[in-house]
């Protein structure tokens, strides 16, 4: 990883998909902030409206050296690189006037304000659209803007619970509650749909000339991100049961994570029905001298394998315990088996594949210095993307943005 000027400017001569778009972001959670970040990465000018005390993310850890400070929040830096920070107090009249004037030239407003907060501020998103017919307002709220639960309060955990996703994840032992998968994924799922809906709205506006109001529900975003759980209900009327680190299914299945000699884990789902992966596995085990009886010809028959699944699983467990996780990962893949190492975040910075693709880029973040950030996971041959950039300090662009507003007739 190296820092170069060119890493912070888009490739010469190529357009970015969102060239010329202005986005105003009023985000109080990672759903809104990640949506805004996608627009930064693809070339839009994103103006982040913050209250005088700073966005909630500035008050959320982890912090640099664990010192709580709005200019040291890694949660804030992660989601807000490259946005312009403008302090506007929506609760006072001047602030509201400034906000309204910013929307006049904006293409998109991202809002995560809860319906109760919108009412408290006297802010009606439909009225905002009516006043700015070309504006696209993307609202992201826990349950959507309408309906019997619209005013309910939520969080990432609560959203996953009510969506139907949480019950599918956890351990085989059901005296342990379902366990929330990490990383604010209800918010992230909502961000993915908010981004998709916003681009559709731009495509629509390019044809019809009019914007509108997009109403994203976090509960629903997670609720349609359950893979098999809904179709099992739609079709055979089955309910899936959570199982440790593998697919929830209506019936119990064999374990799919194996511990290796170095204490680390690999994911490998042994599927007996396919002859080729079975042979690849046995030949691999044989080359390590631990295939035991699995090389016997009777294992060529699926019936025999199924009848002895428990025995096979025991030997495979021992097999993985005898080698290091990275060896198991790369050797298994070299033999054509879909095996995955359970990387920890700290492993990723050294992953030879991600390094070769230049996935992480170093940026210079005031208050810390040089630090790596992931690039946008989109690559185009004929379009540029914006590499990661530092996050602005609170209100860094207030004067610049407001002066530009005042300078207009």
């Amino acid at each position: 990883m190296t820092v170069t000027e060119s890493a912070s400017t888009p490739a010469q001569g190529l357009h970015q998909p969102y060239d010329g778009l202005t986005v105003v972001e009023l985000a109080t959670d990672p759903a809104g902030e990640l949506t805004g970040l996608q627009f930064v990465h693809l070339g839009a000018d994103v103006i982040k409206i913050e209250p005088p005390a700073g966005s909630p993310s500035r008050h959320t850890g982890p912090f640099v050296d664990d010192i709580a400070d709005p200019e040291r929040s890694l949660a804030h830096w992660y989601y807000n690189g490259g946005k312009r920070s403008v302090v506007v107090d929506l609760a006072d009249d001047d602030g509201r006037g400034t906000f309204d004037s910013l929307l006049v030239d904006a293409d998109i407003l991202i809002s995560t304000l809860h319906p109760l907060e919108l009412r408290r501020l006297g802010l009606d998103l439909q009225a905002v659209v009516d006043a700015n017919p070309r504006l696209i307002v993307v609202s992201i709220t826990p349950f959507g803007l309408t309906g019997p639960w619209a005013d309910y309060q939520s969080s990432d955990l609560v959203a996953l619970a009510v969506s139907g996703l949480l019950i599918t994840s956890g351990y085989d032992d059901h005296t342990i509650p379902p366990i929330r998968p990490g990383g604010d994924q209800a918010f992230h799922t909502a961000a993915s749909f908010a981004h998709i809906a916003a681009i559709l709205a731009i495509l629509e506006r390019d044809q019809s000339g009019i914007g509108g109001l997009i109403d994203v529900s976090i509960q629903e975003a997670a609720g349609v991100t359950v893979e098999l759980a809904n179709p099992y209900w739609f079709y055979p009327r089955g309910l899936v049961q959570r199982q440790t680190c593998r697919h929830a299914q209506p019936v119990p299945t064999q374990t799919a994570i194996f511990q290796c000699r170095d204490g680390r884990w690999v994911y490998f789902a042994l599927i007996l029905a396919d002859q080729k992966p079975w042979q690849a596995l046995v030949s691999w085990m044989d080359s390590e001298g631990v295939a035991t009886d699995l090389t016997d010809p009777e294992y060529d028959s699926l019936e025999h394998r199924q009848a002895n699944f428990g025995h096979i699983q025991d030997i495979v467990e021992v097999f993985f315990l005898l080698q290091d996780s990275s060896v198991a990962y790369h050797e298994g893949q070299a033999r054509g088996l879909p095996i995955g190492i359970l990387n920890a975040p700290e492993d990723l910075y050294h992953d030879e594949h991600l390094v070769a693709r230049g996935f992480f880029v170093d940026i210079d973040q005031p208050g810390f210095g040089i630090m790596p950030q992931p690039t946008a996971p989109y690559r185009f041959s004929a379009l540029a993307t914006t590499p990661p950039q530092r996050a602005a300090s609170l209100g860094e662009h207030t004067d610049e943005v407001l002066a530009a507003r005042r300078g207009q007739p």
Partner: protein
Amino acid sequence: MTLIPTDPSRRPRARRGPLAGVRVVDFCWMGVGAMATRLLADFGAEVIRIEDRNRLDMPRRLPLYKGGDVRSYGEEETNPDPNKGGMFNNYNRNKLGITLNMRSERGRELAERLIGTSSLLTENFAPGVMERWGLTEEHVRGLRPDIIYARMSGFGHSGPHAEYRSYGPVVQAVCGLSHISGLPGREPSGWGLSYMDNQAAYYNSSALLMAILARRRFGQGTDVDVSAVEAGVQLLGPVLLDVAVNGRGTRRPDYPTGNRLDHPAAAPHGVYPCAGVDRWVAIAVFDDAEWKSLVGVLGEPPWTSDPRFDTVAGRVANQDELDEHLSSWTKDRDRHDVMTRLQAVGVRAGAVQDAEDVNEHDPQMAHRDIFFELDHPVIGEARFEGLPFTASHFAADHWRSAPLLGEDNSYVYGEILGLGADEVADLAESGVI
């Protein structure tokens, strides 16, 4: 030959929506690709799924059958009816479907003609398959200079692991999402689903939409390379910076934190038992005002006045005890009753719902009409997951359930490519389509 229904409502028609007029030659199969192009089909694109009769798409074979018995998805039937599979219907609504044998020269020639009439070409095969058929990026651009050629894969189309095999759980493992999920001191609990099939599909959908937007604005096509692993890394969130900036490794005894929150400090924050088998409620209390509201609903029992619970820091430091007290209050109560009583005073609480709850009983999901039904000639009426957003100025155009195998051969080869009926019959006879 598949019996093709004569129902006029299944005949391809002009589509509505922001993507009307966009034609997609869609080689995607399995989950990720099919979900990514489904979104285009929902909003008006003419998505033509290309299928191989001799190598059925796995969702056509998965044993999720309406009215069928409930079994694991690995227990396939020996010769499944390709038109009966619920997962295929789920992933391929609103698309057209044709069959084509890409191992035949005539088949590849037809594919090239179709690509010449289309705006997008999509695929999620193992690296090298499209090249084997001659469909290199250069060749495709020769057929249609402004085409968008989207390659969806686990690891991306460059780098030393580009050819590694993956599906959702492998991507989740490699990108770190599995490791960061679980109770401290135990094996990871990870994900009970292919979350990264869904999320990679969403990232691919947005990449396709961006490329369409850019072509409308700047008049040029592009190749698109989205790596599911890289999308997964972006989804890890701020923990990535905690390890890089603070040097705090995540292989430590107190990580991950299960249902407790790393940041911000919050307690109680967990999933608590309720009346019934495997019934739970999630409760998340962030500040003192929410704590006081919770205490009010609990009826202010003596333990709640323990000064150790007066502050966020105190509640976090004593959360084992706090969770025991709260569990003893929730354990004989109905999970929805707990949710409703806590929400009435502004405390964040949610019943842990399953697919039956959200489909049949949840008044919010019902109000928002997230699920909808479409008829299918073999399956009958079936339910679908809609989009988790509404728009005031455009809507999804749900016109048809998934195509039967080869259902749209006569429309695509006849009306789009202009072949005569005899010629189409010959192609079918000789196994080209």
